[in-house]
């Protein structure tokens, strides 16, 4: 099947279909690696994960073992986790603190800024051996935006802020909630799903599945005093699904449940009310009513194309998807919290996170199940099409519509054809730019 035929995108008739081989084909998986993951900016980690000089974290990013470390001069540096000498992994723990880094194979030693500073038996090498040529290698590009570090294996990639396009404002809406900046707390939720990675990107933005798939969560919340008993798709605020350019998308809604930052809910307890009111006043004073309202009362599931999600609803989760095979992905989730929160405020937020999120939460296991169910179903129907046309002819699609998923797929389809940019909006003509 030709790449250009994998998606049917008829914007006049409101038909949008994705061929299921996009989720099952090894050839397409290899092509994604090349044309998407080797060309885009890919999330690596948050600056707060390496607070002190020498702190490091190990990551696998688009199949490559990397690590990042705060060097003695205070800069965050990213290295390929492979000794320049013979290739062994230099960083062999997931996290820690190091004054220097030593490869355990021949004991070559590197500074925290990557220079080769120790070679046992140095005198046995010839005069043309230069230590300066054997430092730890960095990915071609590393940039950060407001604490979020990204890497790119494409030396010619546009700068990160340009790449983020309309997603930048949504990242600001998350980060600006904190008075003293954000930090990732200790502990991460690591799990895997036997399904194609794009299914989780879709699912994370999909407001249509919430009530049918997550009924037990809705029931639990209504049992705690929110009146969600009449919660149906028709009774929900429509919210907005948006395509933000470069494949980034958001599903933005008026929150029905609490928001730990500044929207009270019975589940937080009476004692939380004064603090939440205080934070709200601070946000209004600093950002004005409208922006404070968006921070406090609306939630957003933001996809940073291709494989990062910032889930800002019951709490803020950073969800990173690492594709392993057409039918397999690793998922890591971290919890982002305002630095100024501690004690009761932090406990409330932690508690709120766990109701919905995480592999032990009341909703995430259902998503794992449903994605695996789709992937298994594709074995019977791999030659069929998935329909993603909901709300396609609407002027203002809501979160239960699917513009935010079409925006993702349109960028994917453009990239897979070697184009850099899709026309992502339903109202635009199809096609893309070189």
């Amino acid at each position, binding site marked *: 099947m030709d790449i250009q035929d994998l998606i049917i995108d008829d914007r006049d008739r409101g038909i949008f279909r994705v061929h299921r081989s996009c989720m099952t084909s090894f050839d397409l998986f290899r092509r994604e690696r090349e044309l998407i993951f080797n060309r885009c900016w890919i999330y690596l980690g948050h600056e707060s994960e390496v607070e002190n000089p020498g702190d490091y974290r190990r990551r696998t990013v688009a199949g490559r073992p990397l690590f990042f470390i705060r060097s003695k001069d205070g800069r965050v540096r990213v290295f390929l986790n492979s000794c320049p000498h013979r290739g062994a992994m230099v960083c062999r723990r997931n996290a820690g603190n190091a004054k220097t880094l030593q490869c355990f194979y021949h004991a070559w030693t590197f500074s925290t800024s990557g220079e080769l500073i120790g070679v046992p038996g140095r005198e046995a090498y010839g005069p043309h051996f230069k230590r300066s040529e054997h430092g730890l290698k960095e990915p071609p590009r590393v940039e950060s935006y407001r604490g979020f570090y990204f890497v790119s294996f494409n030396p010619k990639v546009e700068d990160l802020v340009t790449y983020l396009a309309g997603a930048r404002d949504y990242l600001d809406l998350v980060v600006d909630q904190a008075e003293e900046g954000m930090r990732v707390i200790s*502990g991460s939720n690591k799990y895997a799903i036997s399904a194609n990675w794009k299914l989780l990107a879709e699912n994370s933005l999909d407001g249509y599945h919430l009530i049918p798939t997550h009924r037990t969560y809705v029931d639990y919340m209504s049992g705690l005093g929110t009146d969600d008993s009449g919660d149906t798709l028709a009774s929900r605020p429509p919210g907005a699904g948006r395509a933000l350019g470069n494949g980034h998308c958001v599903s933005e809604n008026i929150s029905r449940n609490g928001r730990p930052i500044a929207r009270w809910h019975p589940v937080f307890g009476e004692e939380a009310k004064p603090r939440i009111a205080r934070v709200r006043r601070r946000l209004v004073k600093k950002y004005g009513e409208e922006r404070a309202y968006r921070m406090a009362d609306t939630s957003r599931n933001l996809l940073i194309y291709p494989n990062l999600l910032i889930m800002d609803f019951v709490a803020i989760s950073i969800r990173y998807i690492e594709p392993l095979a057409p039918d397999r992905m690793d998922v890591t989730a971290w919890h982002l919290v305002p630095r100024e929160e501690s004690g009761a405020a932090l406990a409330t937020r932690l508690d709120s996170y766990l109701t919905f999120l995480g592999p032990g939460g*009341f909703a995430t296991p259902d998503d794992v199940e449903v994605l695996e169910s789709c992937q298994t179903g594709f074995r019977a129907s791999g030659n069929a099409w998935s329909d993603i046309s909901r709300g396609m002819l609407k002027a203002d699609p809501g979160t239960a519509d699917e513009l935010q998923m079409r925006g993702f797929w349109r960028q994917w389809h453009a990239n897979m054809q070697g184009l850099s940019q899709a026309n992502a909006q339903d109202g635009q003509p199809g096609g893309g730019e070189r």
Partner: protein
Amino acid sequence: MTDNDRFALRASVEEFLFREAVLLDDWRLEEWVDLFTDDARYVVPSTDLPEGDPTRDLVFINDDIVRLRARAARLNSRHSHRENPRSRTRRFVSNVRVEETDDGQLSVSANVLVYRFRSGEGAPYVGTIDYILRRDGGDLRIAYRRAVLDLEDLSRHGAVSIIF
């Protein structure tokens, strides 16, 4: 405490843990929740931070009695999709260690292996469970249950969809 007292105490705790294992394997979850005190807590730390503190760190599960009851109700619901149809589980509880604390409670640790089978897959949850048990008349109640997984991640399971 004589050796005989110690053996008797451990035997009674083991009896209690074996009974708990049966309730969980038989999916009698409401009876299982009834083993807990009203101020109880059930914690499962993240796999990368076994020492994780749920008031400070990201964990998998941190239930008070209200959420624990809700968890049992959810697992009994046909809308708990990861466990509908239910998995088969078999629990093995061993290496039970018991210490009596100064306030008369029992601090207990046990090695636990739970095999879970479903949808053609079978994978073990392995770890240690630490308990604080409280005497209640002639019976024991769970005041604290911290289940620490030895797994490096949940790559073979996708979720903690059963009670570990």
